[in-house]
């Protein structure tokens, strides 16, 4: 769908050369400084922040390119340049063709106007002619499922209805270059599925050049042939999407381990305090990342100031947004010693930890024989799961991998 087919002139549709964008730090500049700048006079150098720093790349017609990076990496600033909203501090941006930005869903809706009026207003704002919209209006209404409410002022819509209308308008836009800035699915489940399909369709529609900005690496990997990795305004990597996404996974790992203690949640009676947590792989080496499907061994070292009889110790994992993946309790072990005052090491090993790549955190709790909580801890330590081989071929939209067999 997205082979690099140069057009008749063999020219790229987007050419960015040594693009640098610096914003001045600080509050408002004085009226006099502004006036001087506008008149083209020299002004004193202020402290600057480079949102983009010497970025160069070019994109051929028909390419579907993902743009990934952490918050503040410069993705939005880059898109603003491609849309022509802002001008470079230095360098150049050449865009050959009409650009349609799929902006935040519903950003341009005006409450006083009816749904139908908003379709026209937003359509022309997004660069369509009135005739274009005339041709599409029925489809937009149908897609948004708002036929009965289309003459009602948008301010009386529920937020879900507004989002549906916004999404339907935004994705109906026809242009040579589509810029998709994380248009998330909106509405209820049935509509979300429609949104996904629509996005897929848009991204795969032949001949269109698409720039796709997302934090959802799996989506980028699946939909894009190529990806750009931005970091602190610099273009770190410009390669196939799988290479770029893998590299970003690895970078996230570093950040994740730097963040381990930030959100730690501990509730303790004081009888037990945590000394350390280790993650190790198959061969017993201490690691901070494992491959998806590899074995995982978590070792917890803690000290106890009291005797806890018939304890049950729980070691589990969860995602950064507190979806609890798994947990093992020592209560299932027939033989378990009491915890006596002193330092203890316990470990829990999972032969295969088959979750999708991402950051995971460890929780650890201790209950006594009466099921009284002695120590409850979450987000105690983090580790990274990196893609196993062949990750690209695997299905999206899953959390864990349960082995299965096909007969085709």
């Amino acid at each position, binding site marked *: 769908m997205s082979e690099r087919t140069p057009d008749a002139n063999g020219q790229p549709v987007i050419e960015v050369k040594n693009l640098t964008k610096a914003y001045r730090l600080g509050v408002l500049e004085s009226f006099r400084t502004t006036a001087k700048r506008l008149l083209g006079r020299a002004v004193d150098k202020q402290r600057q922040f480079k949102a983009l720093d010497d970025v160069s790349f070019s994109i051929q017609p028909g390419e579907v390119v993902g743009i990934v990076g952490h918050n503040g990496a410069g993705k939005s600033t880059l898109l603003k340049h491609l849309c022509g909203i802002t001008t470079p501090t230095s360098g150049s941006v050449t865009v*050959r063709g009409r650009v349609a930005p799929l902006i935040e869903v519903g950003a341009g809706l005006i409450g*006083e106007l009816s749904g139908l009026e908003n379709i026209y*207003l937003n359509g022309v704002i997004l660069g369509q*002619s009135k005739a274009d919209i005339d041709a599409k209006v029925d489809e937009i209404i149908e897609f948004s499922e708002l036929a009965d409410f289309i003459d009602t002022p948008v301010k009386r819509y529920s937020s879900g209805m507004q989002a549906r209308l916004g999404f339907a308008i935004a994705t109906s836009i026809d242009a040579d270059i589509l810029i998709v800035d994380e248009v998330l699915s909106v509405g209820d489940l049935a509509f979300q599925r429609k949104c996904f399909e629509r996005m897929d369709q848009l991204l795969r529609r032949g001949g269109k050049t698409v720039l796709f900005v997302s934090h959802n690496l799996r989506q980028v990997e699946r939909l894009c042939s190529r990806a750009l990795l931005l970091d602190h305004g610099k273009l770190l990597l410009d390669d196939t999407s799988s290479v770029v996404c893998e590299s970003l996974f690895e970078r996230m790992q570093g950040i994740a381990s730097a963040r381990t203690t930030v959100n730690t949640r501990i509730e303790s009676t004081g009888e037990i305090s945590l000394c350390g947590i280790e993650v190790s792989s198959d061969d017993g080496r201490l690691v901070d990342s494992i491959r998806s499907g590899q074995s995982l061994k978590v070792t917890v070292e803690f000290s106890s100031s009291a005797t806890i009889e018939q304890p049950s110790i729980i070691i589990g994992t969860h995602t950064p947004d507190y979806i609890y993946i798994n947990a093992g309790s020592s209560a299932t072990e027939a033989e378990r010693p009491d915890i006596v005052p002193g330092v203890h090491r316990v470990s829990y090993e999972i032969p295969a930890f088959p979750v999708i790549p991402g950051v995971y955190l460890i929780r650890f709790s201790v209950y006594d024989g009466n099921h009284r909580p002695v120590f409850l801890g979450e987000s105690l330590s983090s580790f990274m799961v990196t893609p196993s081989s062949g990750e690209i071929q695997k299905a999206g939209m899953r959390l864990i991998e349960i082995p299965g067999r096909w007969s085709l």
Partner: protein
Amino acid sequence: MSSSPRNYQNYSDLLWVLVWKNVTLRYKQSRLGLMWLILRPLMLVGIFMVVRGFVGIDSGQVPYALLTYCAMVPWTFFQEAATDGVGSVVGHANLIKKIYFPRVIFPLASLLTKAVELIVGLAILALMMLWFRWVPGWQALWVVPILLYTMLVALTISLAGAALNVFSRDLSQGVPLLLGLVMYLSPVMYPLALVQRALLEHQAAGPSSSFLYTLYTMNPMVGVISSMQRCLLEDVPPDWAVLLPGAAMVAVLLPLSYLFFKRAEAYFADVI
């Protein structure tokens, strides 16, 4: 960005849809609706008539109410178009930050919105003339070029004003205040003939009288208002000597104002 003819079509559609939006929004959920358009000028005319009861303003043969309302129509148009235009870019900050199209569309849309409302003002003026049985002659056709010229006057202020307002919101506060004062420096409440009599015939300000008169006519709205009254009410062509100083001002300032806007445009999204 490419600027194919197709783009121009889209931009002009955008312009007209914005005008339609402005007009519609102003009267949605308002009971008096279009009445608001004529209420303000009519009330001002009423106040002028009361004031005239004390100070005595000679309006010649023309009924005073008709003379002032005839001045009020272009003045209101100009004042509102300029004020609205100055606030137009900042008022669409959410679009400026998200989507590219020529920013000059915003002040233009403001201007055209007021031009649509002007039609209502003109209709009331026609009704008033009917009431006073004041029949216009062929010279009334001058009204069209005069009103087009008024648009240029309003743009002179709104282009530079809208751009400056992005950097400093003081403009959207200051401009309406200033224009409210300039109204008294324009022959709205009183006929131009009174100024001419005082400064040209009686040399009321001594040797500098002629100079003061030229200064007075450098306000382009002096020429606009006087021409409206002459063409509609007196059936004589515009007085070019009155129009000229103001037109010279516009001819110099409008291109500068536009260039300034174009220059500042690039910074809108970063600063707004």
